[in-house]
């Protein structure tokens, strides 16, 4: 099934600081819900391992994330694909960072296609689940700047 996401969030960080954070696998590992590990395979290409639960099904998910069309520190394209016991998915997204006073505004938009178990069992709630997961991501991201953690994940 097709899934569309989009929105904007204000993050208490400068444009540059936010850009650095969003390019730091350690930060992303902490912020992406269910993310177990994120390994850099090549410049701007990562392998991720996730453990997720959607509706009646839970399971593991392995995927690849690549960043492209980067215009530091403002614009970035993201390509995601992966598969696991939950199903498979792929999608593309793009975000832009704009200054918003002392803070930054992150505007994002993306589309995805999801198949397998998660599409069948969780389809009625998938869009609300995705909104929830995105919400958790931004909550965690804001926390990164409220209690700055420097360097790599321990």
């Amino acid at each position: 099934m097709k899934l569309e996401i989009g929105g904007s969030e204000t993050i208490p960080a400068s444009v540059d600081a936010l850009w650095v954070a969003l390019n730091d696998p350690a930060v992303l590992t902490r912020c992406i819900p269910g993310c177990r590990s994120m390994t850099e395979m090549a410049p701007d290409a990562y392998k991720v391992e996730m453990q997720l639960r959607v509706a009646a099904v839970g399971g593991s998910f392995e995927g690849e994330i690549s960043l492209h069309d980067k215009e530091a520190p403002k614009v970035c394209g993201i390509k995601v694909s992966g598969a696991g016991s939950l199903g498979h998915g792929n999608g593309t997204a793009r975000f832009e960072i704009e200054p918003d006073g002392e803070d930054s505004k992150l505007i994002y938009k993306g589309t995805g296609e999801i198949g397998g178990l998660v599409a069948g069992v969780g389809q009625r709630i998938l869009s609300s689940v995705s909104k929830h997961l995105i919400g958790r991501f931004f909550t965690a991201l804001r926390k990164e700047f409220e209690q700055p953690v420097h360097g790599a994940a321990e």
Partner: protein
Amino acid sequence: MSQQPVALRFVSSNRRVREDRRFVAGHGRYVADVVLDGMLHVALVPSQHPAAKILAIDTSAALKMPGVVHALTGDDLVRAVDPLMNGLDTPKVRRFPLAVGQVRYAGEWVVAVVAETRAQAEDAAEKVRVTYEPLPYVIDGEEAATDASPKVHPEHGTNVLLDKTFVWGDVEKHFAESPRHLSFRVVWGRNSTVPIETFGVVARWDAWREMLEVWASIQMPKYPDQIARALRIAANNVRVHQDVDVGGSYGVKRGIKQTVLVSHLSRILNRPVRLIEDRLENMRAGDAHGPERTFDVEVAFNDDGIVKSMKMKALDNVGAYAGRSPFQLGKPVGAIVGPYKIESVQYRAIAVLSNKAAQEAVRGFGQSPTNYAIEAAIDKVAAAVGLDRIEIRRRNFIRSHEFPYLIPSGTHYDSGDYHTVVSKVLASADYEALVKERDALRASGMMAGIGIAACLEPSGGNSSFEPLLNEKNTTSTWMDSCRINIDGLGFVTVTIHTTSAGQGHETLAATVVGEVLEIDPDLIRIVRPDSLASLPSNSPVGSRMAIMLGGACYHAAEKLKTKLKRIGAHQFGLSADNVVYAQGGVSDPRSNKTLSWAELVNIGHRQFHALPAGMEPGLETTHVMQVPTGTKLPENGRVQMYPCHSFEFHLVLLTFDPEIAKPEIRKYVIGHDCGVVINPHIVKGMTLGGIAHGIGAALLEEFSYDSEGQLLTQSFMDYLLPSSHEVPNVEIVHHCTPSPFTVFGQKGSGESGYLGSPAAISGAINDAVSPLGISFSRLPIRIAAISDAIAAAKNKQAEDYA
């Protein structure tokens, strides 16, 4: 064919169903109860794509998981087994238990992981990594039939498996002569039967005895043969244990791919292997899906509502593989005009492959969808000529004096009295009052409608649709057998030779043998030998067992009775024709001397010197029963399909709020004529269950896919089943028109209720919404569809008014 002239003692009497005691008490013995030493368990890795090339399979992580013994891929399997049976002559549509090289539907099994426990197998299955290259796919049946669509089996060259047009009678002439025509489309959504027990199988290969032992929850014709062929072993190396209770089926317990898979695994691992599908495996890729059919119907009729001719095109989306499912377009040929005197028919049957789960047999084997289309036609003709829907049926019904009645497609209907059944139902339901109730509901602001359906249940299960749709197939028998043995102490044991999926065959066999031998059925033991010890029999499909197993038991018992009479007559110095058999004894009517059962048994078992010359010792007989009327192969597209035709007439009143639109069935009456009933409880259970099943098909149940080929209904949260909230109290009005072709006059009833209830409920909803000028032409009619259509119609009315 004989009619029993004497009064029946046990047949039709109010006797308990003997199987029910163990089921109700929780002492059935199902496949999950078969636990063997060293048994391994299987979990499956499903495809997540509707169509994709398998580029690589990495099982290394799975194999390192605790308890894991093996992980089998399609490439490994295909080297050791032959393709599964394909009913049609389409050799390039090959099917194996696991996907080979390519997946063809979301959920298809790609890898089988074997472990010490099912939980370990499931955990390890999550670690299997399959790399796919997605391919184009097609989900819609009509789209799949076009040349431009992606090919499910590229080697086959097209997605069309079968496209056959039959013309029976002067269709074009009748259409030209008829003053009125109408045409329409109706769609039967992909639904099924949903047994409580999913499919399960245990297989054990015994290398030292060269024997494959199988225990399964099975209802598959020619099951041992199919296993042997796929595994490339001799059929007498396969022993299927048939003393396994089957927890529901109604067609779907086909199990062949599962059985071939675990049998192969047992052979290579040298341990017993079990696969019991979980609900997800079952709903996605077990044998869970039934017909999915689009009908385009055209009828020619006159101003009196008499239907002269019909053109029907049925396109069935059979999913990714063939199997037996396309034959479900063939069985309805045997009742293609329903209970009506339609003089000519053009029937085009199209079976199309798509990237959905493969379709399997479901209760009625395609007859219920066809009945729905025929009944929709009759309702529409009634509306077109302004006739009452009951009156139009009465006008078109075959008359009771016209039986046996030859329909255009070559089947003789055995017997029936449709007008009487209708009259009895109308009287019982108080039809006038029902109409008033509907009108009162409408006046109160509710939607309310009456639904009517009249249809036939072809029964007796010949397999004539096989040669009809596949000329290379020359099957003209679909036999069933019975063996009766009276042991040296005088006890009677009857062997029957298939599994049962809740149809009460033990009760059936005991009742029939008790009736003929005039002994208490409760004293008769029924056993099911394994397949190697069995006489030729087919599985209980096609509403056939009352006719076929009942017939086999009757004839075997008659042979045994004749033997007892000959033994007795020999003692009296009489011919067998001149003695009287009563309640197990044989008497000389001149002297009134009687030889008791015990004395006859003693002679049969111990006194060879007292037997008539040439008689074998012991008291044992067998009978292999041919399907009544099954005498020849099809000729010119015409064939006697099934021997018997039960009749049912449904009358439904339902109502719903125009905004909430949840139908509530206020009254449900069915008139049912299946000839002489052998056990009334079994027939009642079949009929009530069939109506519940039909309510699901009409209102709730559908295996639906999204446009990306993903199955959206993989659990009971989304695949909705009728519950006690939806199933009303049903009143059954009995009528009995004996069949002239069966031993007691019995007909089939295993599909009763289901064959007409979807049509009746659909008719009731359409009657309810008819004041708004709308109708529904697709099943299931879900609540949301009703409320949306009503809202749209009301908006349109408001706009038109404005």
